């Protein structure tokens, strides 16, 4: 194993040495590492002094760790530039071909480039954090808890890993640095949003959530590395036509995958769509497993919140019941408009979940199933506090329309997982965009033929049947 890793280290070492011959890389790394922590120290000192005047010591206590995270993050932004350049730059300078003609395996070359992009910025980041910690101790006497320090070190490392692994994927799929830089928005924007979320978490003082963020980022990094290696293609790195946007070709691939070999609509439904359903069998089984997981999350959260049973008075609920059906009729809920509203809402959720799934290798797509199931579990548990059997509650509130809506959700979740899995699965002679277009065609087949009609019928039942079953159930 070590012998297999050696060539990757050789590549990484050469790249690192080469990097340190370039002042355009050295300057920001050294500058951000040395200058920035001093600036942050100064800022921390000023902020602490300012907020203490008004007795807002809590704000000061939260602000110093937040600046620590920022100090760690800034040097790793350099890693993005290095990683974007890793393959695309070599391809542009034609120095990639001797490497591709050498006995390096795909993963050795990939790992070497990854390490070269990752290690120097992380080291710079650690150095910056150390400088900041020493400075902030000397100026305001603040010291970090070891667990928190570990959290920040890990957070910085995984943030760098996410950015680098995503940038290397982009770099392998483009043939010019310019194109790679343009595509880097797909990394910069989600990372900016993530940093904002982390800032909120830290200012809120919920450091425990940071562990989940670290875990999530590790998972996304693994998926990105896997996607990078799966779609690493020597031919494409030597190709020159890749950066040309060929909409006609993309449309042809999508159309061919969507229609398949079918000669008629009937054949398309019975043969082609059925083929896709069969291909989705494994993600479907996995999605089915997520149903009880979602419910369990709901039960767990409501138990954890330790809500008082007084909050859910059965007699109060039953009193409210008398007014439910007339109220819904008067408000115009029981109408075709409500059907359309629910149907379009569900379709919008499908689209948004797919979009989130595409950017997270299917991971965020599971929320289309887990989130509503968790909500149902939570409500069922609350109902049980009020003395209603939670399974009866679930049956009355969800079954009339749920027997169609749940399958639609499960299928959607499976489709999103499949799109995500396609991105990280090696496909012979297929670029990442070709694989994606084919998976998207499969997604559209099932969404059009199965999911959309199921949601429509479920919406009709939800408007015209479910309110009455709820009312009947509560009146018993």
């Amino acid at each position, binding site marked *: 194993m070590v012998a297999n890793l050696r*060539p990757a280290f*050789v590549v990484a070492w050469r790249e690192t040495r080469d990097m340190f011959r370039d002042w355009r890389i050295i300057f920001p790394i050294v500058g951000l590492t040395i200058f920035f922590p001093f600036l942050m120290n100064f800022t921390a000192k000023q902020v602490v002094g300012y907020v203490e005047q008004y007795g807002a010591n809590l704000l000061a206590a939260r602000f110093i760790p937040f600046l620590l995270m920022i100090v760690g993050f800034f040097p790793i932004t350099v890693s993005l530039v290095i990683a974007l350049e890793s393959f695309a730059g070599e391809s542009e*300078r034609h120095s990639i*071909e001797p490497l591709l003609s050498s*006995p390096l395996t795909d993963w050795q070359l990939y790992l070497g480039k990854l390490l070269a992009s990752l290690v120097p910025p992380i080291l710079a980041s650690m150095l910056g954090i150390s400088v900041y910690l020493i400075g902030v101790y000397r100026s305001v006497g603040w010291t970090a808890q070891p667990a928190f320090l570990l959290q920040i070190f890990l957070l910085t490392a995984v943030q760098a890993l996410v950015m680098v692994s995503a940038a290397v994927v982009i770099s392998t799929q483009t043939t010019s640095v310019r194109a790679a830089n343009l595509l880097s928005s797909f990394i910069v924007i989600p990372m900016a949003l993530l940093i904002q979320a982390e800032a909120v978490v830290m200012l809120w003082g919920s450091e425990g959530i940071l562990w989940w963020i670290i875990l999530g980022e590790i998972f996304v990094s693994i998926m990105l590395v896997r996607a990078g290696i799966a779609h690493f293609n020597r031919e494409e790195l030597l190709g020159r036509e890749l950066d040309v946007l060929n909409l006609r070709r993309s449309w042809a691939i999508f159309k061919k995958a969507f229609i398949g070999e079918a000669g008629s609509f009937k054949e398309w439904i019975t043969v082609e769509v059925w083929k896709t359903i069969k291909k989705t069998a494994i993600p479907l089984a996995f999605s089915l497993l997520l149903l009880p997981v979602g419910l369990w999350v709901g039960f767990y959260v409501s138990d954890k919140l330790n809500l008082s049973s007084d909050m859910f008075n059965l007699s109060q609920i039953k009193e409210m019941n008398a007014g439910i059906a007339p109220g819904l009729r008067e408000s115009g809920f029981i109408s075709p408009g409500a059907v359309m509203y629910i149907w379009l809402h569900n379709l919008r959720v499908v689209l948004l979940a797919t979009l989130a799934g595409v950017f997270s290798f299917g991971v965020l797509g599971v929320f289309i199933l887990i989130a509503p199931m968790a909500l149902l579990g939570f409500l069922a548990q609350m109902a049980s506090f009020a003395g209603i059997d939670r399974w009866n509650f679930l049956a009355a509130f969800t079954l009339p329309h749920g027997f169609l809506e749940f399958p639609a959700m499960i299928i959607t979740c499976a489709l999103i997982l499949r799109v995500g899995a396609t991105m990280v699965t090696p496909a012979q002679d297929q670029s990442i965009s070709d694989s994606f277009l084919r998976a998207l065609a499969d997604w559209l087949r099932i969404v059009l033929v199965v999911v959309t009609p199921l949601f429509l019928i479920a919406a009709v039942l939800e408007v015209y049947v479910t309110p009455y079953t709820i009312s009947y159930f509560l009146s018993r």
Partner: protein
Amino acid sequence: MIQAEDLSKQFEEFQAVDGIDLQVGAGEVLALLGPNGAGKTTTVRMLTSVLRPTRGWARVAGYDVVKEAVKVRASVGVLTEQHGLYDRMPANSYLDFFGKIYGMNPDARQQRIRSLLEGFGLDPDDKRPTGEYSKGMRQKLALARALIHDPPVLLLDEPTSAMDPESARLVRNAIHGLRSANRAIIICTHNLPEAEELSDKIAIIRRGKIIIQGCASDLKQRFLGPAEFEVRFNADLNGSVPELPEQARLTHRGDNWLRYQTEQPQQINPELLSQLLANGFPVVSLQEVSRSLEQVYLQAINAPETGEEISDGG
């Protein structure tokens, strides 16, 4: 050492290489000639397992280019069309890097680097980055990179391009030396005299297909007819024409010279020479008329496409 059958590569709608058959043994040099975009580089890239054939197969140094790609790449030294050096590295470090990639031990590496750099007239102790090298020096360094691991198979794309005549001679001598050392070599070049000098076999490729293949003299015979010889005399013939043997055909004549073609020069030339001397013709010299490969190349490239290998001068 290099075997290929029906080797083909299609890029979407474009057929870059279409059913190439090749065979290059140890100690043999094949020159792959053809216009730009004919498929030479694609063929070389398939033989180095960088591109995957869409049809056919190839074995290099005994390894399958698809199933044993890593072993193929370890057995091949490639001089790429663009030398692709790392501009900020000195020559020594550059070769050292590739030596490590090929798994050479430090002593062997340093020894090999020194001998290669010195052999190509480069200074092994030069600390300048290669970005400051001239084109010819860069080309020599790239060639040294291809040879660093002493591979049994060499695929060289334009090995002497951008070199001054002295350096080009140095490289050609090196290629002769490698052939003597039993290396199998494929050279892609537009330099036809060089191809003729270096190669044992020539293959001309056009639109992805090999249209002719053979040794230079055979190709010349096929395209330009039998070998032509010239006899010179030390006096005018004054209209008398010497009688030629049946298997020789007179092609041109002047006051004190004549040219003839024959398919059996080994038999006819001594016979004719003794006949001329016996009949009192004052022979000064008898030599083969040189015919350039360029004529063969141009005829082959401009021949109408039939889908078959071109069989003769047409």
